């Protein structure tokens, strides 16, 4: 992948994020619209880059830290577009795109070369596992952003952000969709583990924390029915849940030894 195109992508997202910031300061809707157009352009470029890497490698190239950050960033941008088009969340884009910049910024200095696929990963179950996992993570990241904004809105009560019921609705939807996709990731991963290693659940630290992520968000899918927890508590849980996701994705891969190393 060309580094120039990668920097161009980063620049597009940076301009979009800056646009949202200007929108908050100036409160001009055309600036927010321009940011949205930029995100559209960024997603198209990122999709093309991802597609090209997939085509060139012959498999979904999400096997190292650069590739996972890049894929995560793509999924987050795509999911933001979905929520923006569905709910017109505008200023929430600032926070989500900031998170996206952190992900993409983390990928920029890394080697873009496609690593050699180890034989055990050469199965469509791996691709499904990865796609569901990172799209699920992206929904959790979206829920985290919305959770933070919910707490801000509860305190500031500003016109810039959607109202509290809308933020709550988006948060719950993001958690629900993220949980569903992450569940599919776990199913695909378990079937793959059974045929690759002979057991469908492994007690390595990555698998254990993946189960923890699943249980945490399963709990959240139930917690929304407890009236006192709706809204504020749910927002805090979304933030805590993303902490668990980050530890599972980055903490274990970078700090601890696991069978899902990140290099």
């Amino acid at each position: 992948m060309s580094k120039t195109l990668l920097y161009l992508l980063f620049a597009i997202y940076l301009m979009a994020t800056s646009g949202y910031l200007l929108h908050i300061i100036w409160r001009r809707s055309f600036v927010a619209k321009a940011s949205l157009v930029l995100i559209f352009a960024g997603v198209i470029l990122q999709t093309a880059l991802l597609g090209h890497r997939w085509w060139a490698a012959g498999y979904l190239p999400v096997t190292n830290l650069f590739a996972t950050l890049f894929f995560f960033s793509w999924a987050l941008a795509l999911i933001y577009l979905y929520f923006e088009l569905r709910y017109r969340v505008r200023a929430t884009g600032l926070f989500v795109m900031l998170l996206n910049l952190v992900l993409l910024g983390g990928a920029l200095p890394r080697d873009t070369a496609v690593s050699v696929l180890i034989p055990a990963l050469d199965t469509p179950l791996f691709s499904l596992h990865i796609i569901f996992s990172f799209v699920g993570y992206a929904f959790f990241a979206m829920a985290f952003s919305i959770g933070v904004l919910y707490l801000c809105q509860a305190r500031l009560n500003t016109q810039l952000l959607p109202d509290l019921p809308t933020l709550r609705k988006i948060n719950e939807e993001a958690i629900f969709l993220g949980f569903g996709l992450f569940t599919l990731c776990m199913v695909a991963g378990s079937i793959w583990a059974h045929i690759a290693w002979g057991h469908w659940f492994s007690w390595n630290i990555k698998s254990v924390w993946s189960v923890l992520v699943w249980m945490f968000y399963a709990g959240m899918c139930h917690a929304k029915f407890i009236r006192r927890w709706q809204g504020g508590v749910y927002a805090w849980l979304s933030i805590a849940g993303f902490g668990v996701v980050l530890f599972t994705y980055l903490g274990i891969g970078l700090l601890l030894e696991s069978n899902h190393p990140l290099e």
Partner: protein
Amino acid sequence: MASGKWPNPFLLKLWALGCSLKLAIALASAATLLIMGGSLVMHYNPAIFAGMEQEIMGRWLPEAWSRAPLLVFWVPLSGLCVLLFALNTLCCLIDWLTMVRVRWRKTGEYLVHTGFILLTVAYLWGNLSGFRSGPHRLAPGDRMSIPNMPGYLLQLEEFTPQIEPGGRPLDMINKLVLWKNGRQVLQKTIRINHPLIYDGLVILPSSYGQEIQGFRFHLPGTGLVDLASGSRLPISPDLTLVVHRFLADAHQDRQGRVMEIGSRLSNPALQISLLDPSGTIWQGWYFLRRQLPEGMVKAGIYLRPVEPVLTTFSLLTINRDPGDKMALTGGFCITVGVIFAFFSFYRKRTIGDRPEI
């Protein structure tokens, strides 16, 4: 469940507790916190927890408990929480089934519940009555009994490791035959991600290796000959060379006794007899790193070592999980449930059915 069906108020309360949402959240939270802490204990105590991957829980836990109960107590405790959580899920499922006519829109969610219950039972079943074994070393032609499964035999017919030009292993192709009570029940070529699965058994390639079988020599007038333990080489109509033993790494002490040091090629030696019609004319050790023994030279046998003869063997993992079909059914229920739940989530929002959630 309708209260009218319960004559006993205590049972009614117990049922309400069993179906309690708050209990579900409390149990899931307790299990989550226990496993979170436990996973770090696990990471920093590999001596205790390394065997967790190689053994089923039913075998690993009692052994680990006897060694370090304070380090492993969280495993049964979190298991109990998950089990109670599954029981709670089962109560909710039964409760839903009794009112399925009015709550059918939750079918997706309850399929996920069903899948979770099946997975929990399947895990318990597999980890109490299954096994994990290996790596088992098999060379082509070898047969072995499957551990813990009397009457089952596994035969490796062919083994071909696939290696890319750079030396990186790409695949391990094993042609296997499974026998049950003397009858061939399955023949399958297995490779990475394509195991043999039969009656809860999962047989998969885990690695491979090479061992030295003997040595290749050049014999003037004959050409290349391979000599290993048990080889008989006719030199002439009246003279035969017999190899009694081949050692890859041999040592000879001061008394002349020869012993095997290891299986790696280091100081190879052959124990040889030369036979003619009258009997043995010479017997002794031929150390390949030394000169030919005088007895062989006298007999006119000028063997020149060329290269070792290697046999490639496969290392196979053999596991048995009697709950695997149940787990697969659970996974199927969950997958269908998630798809159904996604559909019904948006459908409910569209028609304004409880739009607040």
